[in-house]
């Protein structure tokens, strides 16, 4: 194999892993909300992009460092999620069949956010790019990779691992899983279901925004990314199985590598077709997902 | 062949597994005319699976189901309803936002002529004491009223056999007593199969009892005989309430 081919393959691999981890993170956020609250959040893509845009504003207009901006965005995101939960989300906690209601409601939220984008950020620019998070380039053999991207991969992997561990070992995480398995049984065991819901919503939102920030650090992005990301996140969640972080990770990596591979030979839209196809197949054959509990 | 001798419903050597778990092992049951059959057994014994198989919600892995002498294995519930076999469900089901009248209209759709759709309605409504509730939305009825509505809807189908899945579930003891009276009167209108886990109801209503334990038919006979069967006592009655 020629050096050039090796470089292309390694580059694909790195891109695939990076994308895959980011996908997995976002899908995990969506999955937590759906598995726990039955809230399929169609606006996750908008939130994803919103994080990047806010970070851009902070770094561009106020000159903050990327890291400081990211932390601020995550904090602000937590607050926004709390406010949203307080005003809108909690009203449907008791509703049966609330997953359709939430799905449509979040489609409405998508429209609102998208409308706000088109009157603000869309007028300003087509493409957005954050300044480099970390300077410099490392060489893995012959392959150069920016330190920023290495950082992104590391943080994404850590975040997923932390989610996984937290859900398994931390008290709140276990409460989350208990509610996911069986809400009534969990309530009988003394779990405050509503505060678990609130936690799940805020956690899911913050995780999604983290994904958006990491993506923005590694790549430039535009506003159409929102819809693509929503579709991808849902596809990963459905294929991997709602509520399964492990499923989100595996399927996320598969999708990420697919996207990286496909982008080399064809337009990225083909990858979207593939995700849609996979989601459709799973919905029709095994709706509980590949890795369901 | 004497038509009266043909059983209403027969299952022959039914086997059904769900992903490795054998829910029903070689179960053969007959529902005869002019006789109320009761099926009892602990949770997980396969009662619901058996009824689901009889009513077309499931296909058996092996074995066959016959209704009125004709093979009906694999027919869907609506097709069986057309032939005169219908069932109720453990959890009460009504068309929530429709009134009692509208529920009965919907259940009468099978009847071909408009006049035919109303012919026995008033009598059935009065018998089941639903007449005054005709215009009430069915979701606002009490559980007992909804259970009676379930029976009324099924009677619109002019059924030959009704499979009743825990028909007194959720009712107070007074209501249970009243329901037993209703079910006794139901006998004269169509054949009945009752699934229950309450001994009291079975003793009051069933002429013959089949006991299912862990997917197998363990006993089949008059209630008094079955309830003294040693295996039944060992494996089931010890934990059941009388």
């Amino acid at each position: 194999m020629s050096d050039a081919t090796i470089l292309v393959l390694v580059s694909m691999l790195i891109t695939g892993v990076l994308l895959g981890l980011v996908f997995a993170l976002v899908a995990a956020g969506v999955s937590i909300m759906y598995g726990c609250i039955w809230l399929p959040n169609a606006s996750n893509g908008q939130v994803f992009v919103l994080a990047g845009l806010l970070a851009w504003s902070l770094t561009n207009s106020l000159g903050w460092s990327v890291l400081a901006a990211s932390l601020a965005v995550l904090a602000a995101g937590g607050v926004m999620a709390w406010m949203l939960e307080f005003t809108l989300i909690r009203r449907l906690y008791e509703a049966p069949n609330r997953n359709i209601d939430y799905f449509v409601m979040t489609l409405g939220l998508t429209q609102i956010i998208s409308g706000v984008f088109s009157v603000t950020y869309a007028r300003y620019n087509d493409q957005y790019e954050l300044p480099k998070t970390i300077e410099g380039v490392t060489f893995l053999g012959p392959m150069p990779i920016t330190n920023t991207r290495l950082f992104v991969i590391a943080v994404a992997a850590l975040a997923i691992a932390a989610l996984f561990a937290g859900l398994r070992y931390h008290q709140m995480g276990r409460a989350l899983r208990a509610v996911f398995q069986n809400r009534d049984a969990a309530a009988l065991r003394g779990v405050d279901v509503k505060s678990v819901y609130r936690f799940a919503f805020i956690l899911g939102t913050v995780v999604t925004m983290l994904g958006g920030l990491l993506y923005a650090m590694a790549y430039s992005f535009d506003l159409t990314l929102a819809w693509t990301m929503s579709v991808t996140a849902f596809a990963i969640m459905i294929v991997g199985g709602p509520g399964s972080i492990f499923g989100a990770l595996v399927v996320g990596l598969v999708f990420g590598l697919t996207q990286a591979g496909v982008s080399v030979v064809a337009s990225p839209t083909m990858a979207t077709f593939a995700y849609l196809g996979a989601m459709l197949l799973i919905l029709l054959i095994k709706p509980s997902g590949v890795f369901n509990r | 062949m004497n038509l009266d001798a043909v059983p209403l419903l027969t299952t022959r050597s039914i086997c059904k597994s769900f992903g490795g778990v054998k829910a029903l092992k070689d179960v053969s049951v007959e529902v005869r005319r002019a006789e109320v059959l009761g099926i009892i057994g602990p949770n997980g014994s396969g009662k619901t699976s058996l009824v689901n198989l009889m009513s077309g919600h499931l296909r058996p892995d092996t074995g066959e189901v016959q209704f009125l002498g004709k093979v009906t294995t694999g027919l869907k519930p609506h097709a069986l309803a057309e032939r005169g076999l219908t069932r109720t469900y453990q959890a009460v089901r009504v068309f929530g936002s429709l009134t009692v009248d509208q529920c009965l209209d919907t259940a009468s759709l099978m009847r071909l002529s408009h006049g035919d759709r109303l012919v026995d309605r008033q009598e059935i409504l009065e018998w089941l004491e639903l007449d005054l509730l005709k215009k009430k939305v069915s979701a606002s009825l009490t559980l007992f009223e909804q259970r009676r509505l379930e029976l009324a809807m099924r009677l619109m189908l002019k059924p030959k056999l009704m499979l009743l899945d825990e028909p007194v579930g959720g009712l107070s003891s007074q209501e249970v007593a009243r329901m037993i009276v209703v079910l006794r009167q139901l006998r004269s209108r169509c054949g009945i199969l009752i699934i229950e886990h309450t001994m009291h109801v079975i003793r009051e209503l069933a002429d013959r009892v089949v006991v299912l334990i862990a997917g197998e038919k363990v006993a089949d006979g008059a209630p008094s005989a079955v309830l003294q069967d040693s295996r039944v006592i060992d494996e089931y009655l010890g934990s059941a309430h009388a």
Partner: protein
Amino acid sequence: MTKAHSNILGGIVCCSLVALPFALQSNKFLAFILGMVLINMIWACGMNVLYGFVGLMPLMYAGIAGIAAYGMIHLTRAEGWSFWVAMPVASLCAAIVGVLLGLPSLRLKGFYFTLCSLVIQTAMTLVFSYFPKYTNGDTGINQISPPTLNGKELNGAMFEVVLVLFALAAVGSVAFIMSRPLGKRFIAVREDEVLAEAVGIDVVRTKVLAFFLVSLYAGVGGCLYAVYVGFVSPRAFDILSSLAIWLIVAFGGRGSIAGPIVGTLVLAPLPYLLQEVPWAKDIILGVLIVGVILWFPGGIYGSLFKGRGVRAAVRKGDADRMVDQRV
């Protein structure tokens, strides 16, 4: 509102609708809005049958309309057919596609079907964009000529009058269907599929028929849209269009004959009145969607006329019927 009252009101509305095109002759903009309201009314009638009466939310509705529209355009342009033949043929083809796309509803409940329909719609939009042979891709097809009637091209008030007739036919046909046994079967399937099956209703056949009928409305509306506006592109038949039509029905009041009419009259003119500020259209659409979900699940018509009793009963019925919809 008694039956006599609603009949009189209906009669008044019909007469005014037929007279309106002539009254609006002087203002092309308002006349155009009237035309779009009428086309949306046809669409809303179809969506109402599936969403209001059968209880399924088909987010691929606009895609089906698009298939009919593109098919009609192909038949009139490439094959030289008359619009009046092409439209029914294209709508029938769209209806067959609609049945196929509706088959997942036989296995998927509630949210999963909605999600599936979303996926299908997204795929359809991609197909419209990336297979330009029939659709000319994102550029769209313009200069679609209006149909001819008695040798003369249809334009001006006559076009709107034709649309009025179609809209009235749409509303009337839905009212007719719902008064027949088929309509009662639709409602039974919406209320409780399992129970419907148990009382002798062939749920599969009922759903297939529902998708066929509903897709016809989508298709006819799509064809009329194409010749009235004179321009189509994939964006005319994307997920946002499906959502907008859904909103009209949900906002106006699903499961009633008058609800979609109310919804159309209020919501359909909005995008055109807000032409100067397209971002406001998005935000208002979003806010209305959220509002309907949280505060007006029965829609305006449902909240005003059906009253508390039915709503409370419906909520209790929902709670009793809760089935695990995650799988």
